[in-house]
């Protein structure tokens, strides 16, 4: 027989004390509280600084998240003086010297967004409160980016967005503590429209299939307004459920309409399936109004394009960056080859645009802290606002102060007819110069919301 030392009263008392301890938000009990003098959340203690990389490690975007994580690891390696230095050698700002950030060795923690807003917020919160992350970056969806950006604003943390393309991230949902290097729906529309007009003519009738969520709406609006300004007519636009897998019943009515262009405002698995179905129904071989039927995918993802296989051949779309930029268009896009070399040597294949934007965002954050001479988020915000830089693969780029959006050239690509391997699926058609994709901060597609003021937290 065993004798228990627990008494009911004892257990209750212990439970009450433990419960009170657990219920106290850790943001008040962690490193922040201990370092109240520094006046901002998670001020780095000792000789290390912790960054939080919040990427989809499970769910349908797990492969994209894995590529982002590779890029983050590489950026941390380079910041700490490891490897060949990558883009540190080509970056126009020269304050980063491979000794970490302001002499503190960079460490990182990772979270799994699952591409769900609530899960992403929970993992970001955990990285901030438990691990003391001073900055959060990553992600593969605009819903997640907007949610995590708002959380970082409340917590007094800098958010360096990963792959997020919706106008709203730096439009109605923009926040002072959030920064986006990736391009957006408006820029895709503005970059694509002149090239679509040049390639397919100005007398076209477009049919839109649009994913029924925030990113889909802003992308359709951007592409519609840009193409209509070029003379195109939009004959119909149909919202498709995000969970849809077989798009045949949405493709069939396209055959009945007199549209001669199908615009697929879909991303990821939706894009793979809708494009595959459209090609199955013979849309690529179709002649309407005396013209060859065309399909357009406004936002390309190289990783997802692999899923569509040969169906992407000849399809036009836009990208934030492509690993062939410097080789094909010259030294203006310096940094591209340095990054591809580092990434390719370490992992054996070229990086995706998601990997590129995450790598660049990490360097930009480290650079801003170093130039500001402080980890204080408000000092970092000041250093990033209006910052002009070069040598990170996109050519001369501006981090605009009004909305924390990067302005740079946009790459228009086309699916290759005969890809040589699974990493070489698209060819660069043209690069639309930055001034053609720049818009006023108060543009209607970005209306509503304001940056507010930076929050140092604590």
């Amino acid at each position: 027989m065993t004798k228990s030392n627990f008494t009911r009263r004892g257990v209750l008392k212990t439970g009450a004390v433990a419960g009170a301890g657990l219920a106290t938000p850790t943001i008040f009990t962690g490193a922040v509280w201990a370092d109240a003098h520094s006046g901002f959340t998670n001020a780095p203690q000792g000789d290390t600084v912790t960054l939080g990389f919040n990427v989809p490690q499970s769910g349908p975007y797990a492969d994209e998240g894995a590529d982002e994580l590779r890029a983050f690891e590489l950026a941390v390696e380079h910041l700490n003086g490891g490897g060949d230095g990558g883009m540190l050698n080509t970056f126009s700002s020269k304050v980063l010297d491979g000794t970490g950030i302001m002499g503190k060795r960079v460490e990182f923690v990772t979270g799994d967004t699952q591409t769900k807003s609530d899960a992403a917020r929970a993992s970001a919160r955990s990285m901030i409160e438990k691990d003391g992350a001073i900055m959060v970056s990553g992600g593969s969806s605009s819903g997640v980016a907007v949610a995590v950006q708002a959380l970082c604003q409340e917590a007094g943390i800098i958010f360096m967005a990963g792959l997020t393309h919706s106008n709203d991230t730096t439009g109605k949902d923009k926040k002072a503590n959030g920064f986006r290097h990736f391009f957006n729906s408006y820029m895709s529309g503005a970059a694509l429209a002149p090239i679509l007009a040049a390639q397919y003519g100005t007398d076209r009738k477009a049919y839109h299939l649009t994913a029924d969520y925030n990113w889909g709406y802003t992308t359709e609006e951007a592409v519609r307004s840009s193409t209509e300004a070029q003379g195109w007519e939009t004959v119909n636009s149909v919202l498709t459920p995000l969970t849809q897998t077989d798009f045949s019943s949405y493709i069939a009515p396209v055959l009945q309409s007199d549209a001669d262009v199908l615009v697929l405002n879909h991303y990821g698995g939706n894009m793979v399936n809708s494009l595959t179905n459209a090609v199955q129904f013979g849309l690529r071989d179709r002649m309407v109004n005396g013209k060859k039927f065309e399909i357009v995918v406004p936002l390309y993802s190289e990783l997802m394009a692999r899923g569509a296989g040969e169906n992407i051949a000849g399809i036009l779309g836009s990208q934030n960056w492509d690993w062939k930029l410097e080789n094909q268009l010259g030294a203006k896009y310096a940094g591209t080859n340095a990054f591809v070399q580092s990434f390719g040597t370490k992992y054996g294949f070229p990086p995706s645009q998601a990997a590129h934007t995450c790598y660049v965002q990490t360097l930009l954050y480290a650079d801003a802290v170093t130039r500001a001479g402080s980890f204080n988020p408000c000092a970092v915000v000041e250093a990033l606002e209006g910052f002009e830089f070069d040598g990170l693969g996109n050519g001369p780029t501006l981090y605009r102060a009004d909305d924390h959006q990067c302005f740079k050239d946009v790459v228009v690509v086309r699916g290759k007819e005969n890809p040589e391997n699974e990493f070489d699926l698209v060819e660069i058609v043209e690069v639309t110069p930055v001034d053609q994709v720049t818009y006023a901060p108060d543009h209607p597609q970005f209306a509503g919301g304001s940056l507010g003021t930076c929050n140092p937290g604590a």
Partner: protein
Amino acid sequence: MEAIILQVLNGLDKGSAYALIALGLTLIFGTLGVVNFAHGALFMLGAFCAVTFSRLIQVSHTVIDETQKDFLGNPLKVDVPYIYDFFGQAAGDVMIDWAVPLSILMAIPVMIGIGVLMERGLIKHFYKRPHADQILVTFGLAIVLQEIIKYFYGANPIPTPAPDALVGSFDFGVMLGFDPGGIVYPYWRLVYFLFAAIVIAAVFAFLQFTTFGMVVRAGMADRETVTLLGIDIDKRFTIMFGLAAAVAGLAGVMYTPINSPNYHMGMDFLVLSFVVVVVGGMGSLPGAVLAGFLLGIIEAFASMPEVLNVLPGINQIIIYLVAIVVLLTRPRGLMGRKGVMED
């Protein structure tokens, strides 16, 4: 008119997938009385049999080609499938091209094996447990199977094209006397529909015209009496579980050229298949097939712009609306039998 015919065709091929999955589901429910939430995962495993088979026959050795460079400027490594060494390049290319139909040969034994293993290893321990327990354990199993596939194959969809001869579409409208280009239908979807019809007919024939099928049907009607007659009905039901797994697996194999398979595809079909089973009538095989095609066609029509303009969003709820109406008017489903799940 063309639009209607096209949506009926779309509904038929979508319905084929629903019917095949629902047939297996209701077969398991009718024989073993188990609500199998892992059935969608069996569909997904079937699709990955096709992926695995096409990867297996493309297992390659590397040859360095000094004349070409890779993206880092190093000599290009070219993969040469072993199948070229064994059968020559021409025959090898044909086999690679026809990988999806050929993978049926691998999928049948593999899926029966998985089905039997699943039933003997896990599900038989839950026969006497409440349906809620069965749902929990099979749903858990589905998640485990999904994660295993994701671990080995990644989260991205994997393109698994149809043979070149069956890629593309044909003009159905011209055959019916309509304008060219009005009713264009992909070859492979027609193949899928015919394949589904053959499999469904084969399952019905097996149950209807063989002694084994007769015993199973007798067992479905009155398990105790059949057991008292000295027949080992459990063994036969295990085989039926394997057969149901194979039907779901074959549905998955043939579906891969329609949509590139990913680890999550089973879940996408699972909920709808359950609705199909409920609308058809729990335990009714013809009901499952009928409801599968019916809901496929209704779903296709609800996605037409003409319908969406009048009732926005109807495409997302139509199946559940139909289910509610059917259950209100015919509580046992379209062809449900009295006494099933009513105890």
